[in-house]
């Protein structure tokens, strides 16, 4: 049994309770959203807004719970190397670092301070949680704006749909971090012989340093997920733009979120660049995920350029069409990690 088991039990119990409340309130908010989307007149907008705020607040509470679990993992799961292996391990690491000569070597092990996991909050199912929580928080200012009740209803209905997908398909509470625990399971099982333990450590240690614990992990993915959330709002606004001209407030709403999303996307992509050099060297440039990200960035740049001329009739529709293509490109870029092989997927 791993020393984290009691914490996992508390985490799952609290998380499942939270999940039930979020799903119930989301269904209520989504129902009101759908009514507003379909009706000519606004219906219980204030109640819909309050429900959306509560759902967003509860999602933040769940996020803090995920943070608590990661803190417990840091405290309870250090990779302690047995004294009989330590000398050989450090000898091996020193020789490997000297041979590589890249300047990105693996630090030697100090038995007083064993390596610990500093898990980011957006790995495995946590990434969907963060993405959809970012969306929930982002729509709060949008649904307080004086835009059409239908648009506000659509944004809230989408929030409910996302929460349903989140908890029914990718629930981070019922079985947290399955890949991570599968990875570290053998190390903590206590059944490995010394040689097996050495081999296992050399699988876990580089992955800990270059994937889980790297500072880039705290910048690159969350910035991209925030941009995904903002693109979703732009997408909804673009759909409403396509429905008819003469609604500048809808265009302004879409543009405001597009600006924020582009900011996050560009910064996130830029910050992935030195990380890729560090982790993979220079031979990654035409990796499928990079290709799809460049494509998405190019389409987004196009949207922002054409938007300057959105007051013209054809450009209005062209720009709104591009807002929809941006969203499609985002979905395509996201699923690239699952369908296409390459450095991002490790296939």
């Amino acid at each position, binding site marked *: 049994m791993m020393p984290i088991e009691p914490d996992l039990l508390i985490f799952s119990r609290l998380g499942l309770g939270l999940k039930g409340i979020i799903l119930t309130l989301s269904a209520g908010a989504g129902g009101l959203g759908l009514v507003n989307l379909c009706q000519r007149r606004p219906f219980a907008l204030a109640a819909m807004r309050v429900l959306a705020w509560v759902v967003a607040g509860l999602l933040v509470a769940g996020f803090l719970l995920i943070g608590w679990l990661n803190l417990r993992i840091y405290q309870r799961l250090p990779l302690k190397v047995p004294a009989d292996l330590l000398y050989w391990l450090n000898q091996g690491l020193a020789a490997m670092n000297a041979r590589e000569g890249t300047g990105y070597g693996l630090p030697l092990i100090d038995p007083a301070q064993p390596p610990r996991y500093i898990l980011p909050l957006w790995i495995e199912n946590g990434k969907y949680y963060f993405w959809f929580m970012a969306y929930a928080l982002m729509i709060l200012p949008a649904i307080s704006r004086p835009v059409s009740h239908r648009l506000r209803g659509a944004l809230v209905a989408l929030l409910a749909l996302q929460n349903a997908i989140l908890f029914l398909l990718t629930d981070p509470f019922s079985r947290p971090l399955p890949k991570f625990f599968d990875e570290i399971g053998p190390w903590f099982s206590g059944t490995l012989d010394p040689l097996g333990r050495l081999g296992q450590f050399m699988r876990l240690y580089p992955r800990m340093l270059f994937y889980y614990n790297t500072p880039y992990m705290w910048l690159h993915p969350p910035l991209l997920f925030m941009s995904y959330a903002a693109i979703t709002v732009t997408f909804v606004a673009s759909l409403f733009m396509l429905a008819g001209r003469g609604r*500048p407030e809808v*265009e*302004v709403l879409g*543009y405001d979120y597009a*600006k*924020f999303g*582009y*900011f996050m996307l*560009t*910064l996130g992509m*830029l*910050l992935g*660049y*030195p990380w890729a*050099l560090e982790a993979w060297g*220079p*031979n990654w*440039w*035409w*990796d*499928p995920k990079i*290709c*799809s990200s*460049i*494509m998405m960035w*190019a*389409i987004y*740049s*196009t949207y922002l*350029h*054409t*938007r*300057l*001329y*959105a*007051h013209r009739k054809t450009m209005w529709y062209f720009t709104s069409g591009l807002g929809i293509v941006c969203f499609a490109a985002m979905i395509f870029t996201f699923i*690239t990690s699952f*369908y*296409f*092989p*390459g450095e991002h997927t490790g*296939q």
Partner: protein
Amino acid sequence: MASPQKTSYDFYLILFTVLVLAAISAICVYGMFYFKFAELSRMPLPVKNAYMERMNELVSPFIIALILTLAVCVPKRILPAVWLNRFSLALGLMSVLIAWRWGVVAALKIALCLTLGLQVVVLGLALAGSERLNFETKGYWLRLGSSCMHLGVVLFILDLFFYRHRGLHLVLFWVTTVSTVLGMTGCFYSSLLARRAGGLARRAKGEE
């Protein structure tokens, strides 16, 4: 929303940029599917390198077009239309001559360095609040932001030529990142910045 009234040089440059970006996007999509169906992830390094070379060759005309567009976009801020046409013609001729004599990469590097120099001048003028700059949109912070952002793009493309020189490469990269972030802040949140700056100026005057 900005509302430029007449069809301008900027409009056509933007349309051209859109076309180039669309072409680059299409090449990226082609690369993804080729990578998957040719099972390149399982191939030895020489095969992967050959694929990278092929993709570089495919995308290079469009990167060249983007660089030349930037090289026209930047001086249009400081030159009147007649001189801009002359400049574009001279740039095109110079690029062809240098490419013929010393190769395409040298021509691109020179075009980029020229663009970089001009962009620094534009940034200096924008920083000084010069009214002589030709922008589609008005506003001190917006112009400053746009100048920083375009400087970031020029530096990023220039940086791609130096990836083998790790020190220089990373320095250029961080300058690119800072310039891009400042540029996006100025471009996207110019009215907020103007309000804050105005408030600070009024408060300073009040204290005097």
